[in-house]
């Protein structure tokens, strides 16, 4: 299992960051895809922005962007009203069980 998957399994969303050129390496990997330098693993900000969203039955799924770089698809839960593109959301849970899973709520809720 990769470092990324091990951390996700523990509930930590981490990303690789190059020790040499400081770029975030996403999707995560053991070396930088710009300069091939070594990476360190660091937590990703919990805050994200909705880039786009849709619904399947009662599940709202969205493309969320962290730190203006990392984009993932996740589910948006505990919604009380309308959501908008550009809305600030927070990652409330992540896990790994064969595949990654990201769960968001509206920030401040």
């Amino acid at each position, binding site marked *: 299992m990769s470092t990324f998957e091990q951390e996700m399994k523990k509930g930590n969303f981490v990303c690789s960051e190059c020790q040499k050129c400081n770029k975030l390496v996403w*999707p995560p990997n053991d070396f930088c895809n710009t300069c091939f330098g070594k990476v360190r693993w660091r937590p990703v900000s919990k805050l994200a922005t909705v880039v*786009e969203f*849709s619904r*399947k039955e009662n599940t709202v*799924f969205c493309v969320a962007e962290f730190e203006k770089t990392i984009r993932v*698809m*996740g589910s948006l839960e505990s919604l009380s009203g309308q959501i908008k593109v550009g809305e600030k959301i927070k990652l409330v849970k992540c896990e790994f069980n064969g*595949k990654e899973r990201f769960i968001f709520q509206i920030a401040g809720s």
Partner: protein
Amino acid sequence: MKNVAISGFGITKFTRDDLPIESLMASAVKSLFVNTPNLVQKDVDAILTATSDSSKYLSSITAELTGITPKISHNVESLCNSGANCAISAFAYIASGLADVALVVGAERFDSPGLILEWDKSRGQFRHPIYWSSIFTKSHMRRYGTTKEDLAIVSAKNHKNALANPYAYFEKEFSINDIMRSKNLTEDIRLLDCSYPCSGSAAILLTSEDVTKRFTDCPIWITGIGQRTVSASFTKNHDFTAIQSTREAANDAYKMSSKESSEIDVAEVHDAFSICEIIEVEDLGFAIKGNGSKYVREMYDTQNRRINPRGGLLGSGHPLGATGIAQIIEIVQQLRGEAKKRQVEGADVGLVQNMSAAATSSTVLIMQS
């Protein structure tokens, strides 16, 4: 660089039959030999297969089943654009002089392991293709006012075109209402906005200008090629209202063939979902950005078959590795004037756009008679 022609083809009907993939490939190759009377097995320098099914060493197996002992044989795998990419690999062997005659055969079974992409971490739990297509659909609707009816028109048009394609999976016309009332898969797409996995195979013969005359009097020349892969992760598509990989591949193909989008008479484009055709006609330069749905609606209203005359993926079915090659076969038939009820009158220049991995990779070919 030698000129390269498509000098023959063979195809099977697309079905849900539970046949071994090597049998599908061998059937398309057999049909190619039957259609190309002067071709014998020893003429074939290279046999390249296209499929997402890597469970068998299919290029060697297909060669053996069809009595070929090639110099070059291997598989090309790149999910849904394996077919067009395989044709380009064969083109490169011939253009470089490493081969004079190359056989390209693509196939897939309805239960292909390539249907759901398992690597892309950025998709989280939403790995089925309906999720990425919903995101593109929603973005295009939001920015350009594209409607659910616009999506249904793409599907209605392509299913209607497929009625004249004897190899298509679907043999049924669907009204705009039928499509709009088909099962909601997400808020934005319905079942009949999606292409259908099926079993099928398609083969083409590529030949160098030196030997082409031996096999056909009506060669179709590949004059433009563009390929672009922007990522392997769906979420790295910067803008979900456009397909960057297609735009860049098309620019390269137009440049290589010294053609412009306005000179394309007929095109097969990768309508894996209804929204794809709307965005592709924009990014290939056939319609102004944002006008893709209007362009498709006009084709539907006037029964113009310029885009996806064989019925596209929506009408023909989508056996992944076979799709790009089936698209090429349609353009060959169109440019030879042999497309019967599907014929676009006076077609001299054709285009194929084949795409994979949630629009992150595209291949464009331009062909001329």
